[in-house]
């Protein structure tokens, strides 16, 4: 595996496309979406015909993947990805799986870290 170049190499590269045109100018998602939060397709949900090509693209790659992965795979900036995923969640096409948030109880936090530790030791 070749290590990728450091992200800084491409920093401050100007963009030619105004990305938020594909979200109709919206820059915030109504759903709180952590970078590592994963998505699942809702069983039985069918993509409505009115979905934009960008939303369709997001829908196609998002199952069992994180917000960050969807952004990387669709080559859309993280903010745009969040808006599109938020729409799909609101439309009931996908659901968000749990992560640690401010609302997570200490017991749940302990349980998660313990599971992570077990997983890492066997990885």
């Amino acid at each position, binding site marked *: *595996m*070749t*290590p*990728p*170049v*450091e*992200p*800084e190499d*491409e*920093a*401050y*590269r*100007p*963009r030619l496309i*105004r*990305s*938020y045109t594909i979200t109709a*100018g*919206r*820059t915030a998602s109504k759903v709180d979406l*952590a*970078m*590592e*939060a*994963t998505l699942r397709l809702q069983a039985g949900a069918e993509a409505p015909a009115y979905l934009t090509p960008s939303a369709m693209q997001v829908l196609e790659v998002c199952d069992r993947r*994180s917000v*960050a*992965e969807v*952004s*990387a*795979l669709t080559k859309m*900036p*993280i*903010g*745009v*990805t969040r808006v599109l995923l938020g729409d799909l969640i609101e439309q009931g096409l996908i659901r968000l*799986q*749990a*992560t*640690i*948030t401010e609302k*997570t109880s*200490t017991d*749940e*936090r*302990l*349980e*998660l*870290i*313990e*599971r*992570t*530790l*077990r*997983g*890492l*030791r*066997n*990885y």
Partner: protein
Amino acid sequence: MDFETTKAQRAAASTKIVIAGGFGVGKSTLVGAVSEIDPLRTEALVTNESEGVDDLAAVPTKHTTTVAMDFGRLTLAEDLVLYLFGTPGQRRFWFMWDDLCRGAIGAIVMVDVARLDESFSPLDYFESKGIPFIVAVNEFDGVPRYPVDEIAAALALPPEVPIISLDARDREQAKGALVKITEYALMRLRESLTVNAN
């Protein structure tokens, strides 16, 4: 069985550890050494005044730039995925760190002994936010080695913060660093419970 279903859905399905440190210190190398996928890159849009990420609606005429973040993925169990996020090194992108660190188990601050000063700011950041972190000294080929306790002293590390040295290219050593930060985060959380109980 409804209860079980609810509990299973509430249990976190993914989590993350943040990999921080100065430019070229080996963050992406470490991520690449343990990730099950070739590390991926996500970008956030930034206005050149750095007033905030993605806040372009109010300022449509500003030029935008991007800040890139590399990340990797480890499937730890059927129902648990761990993501590793490398922080953007440059100081002007620090506003991205809050987004990256929210909900993280903890952070690994990577250190290059030839440029110790570059790790001061990340160390300050995690200390001030109360995020558990460990220090990992990346042993580059041909660079003099120092005992980790001398490095800890030079960094003015609090005595409880674990410090290890590793070769970021080595999968087992990179994995060892992930185990270390997770153990430390678990210990910190258990300690906080004891303090609260007394």
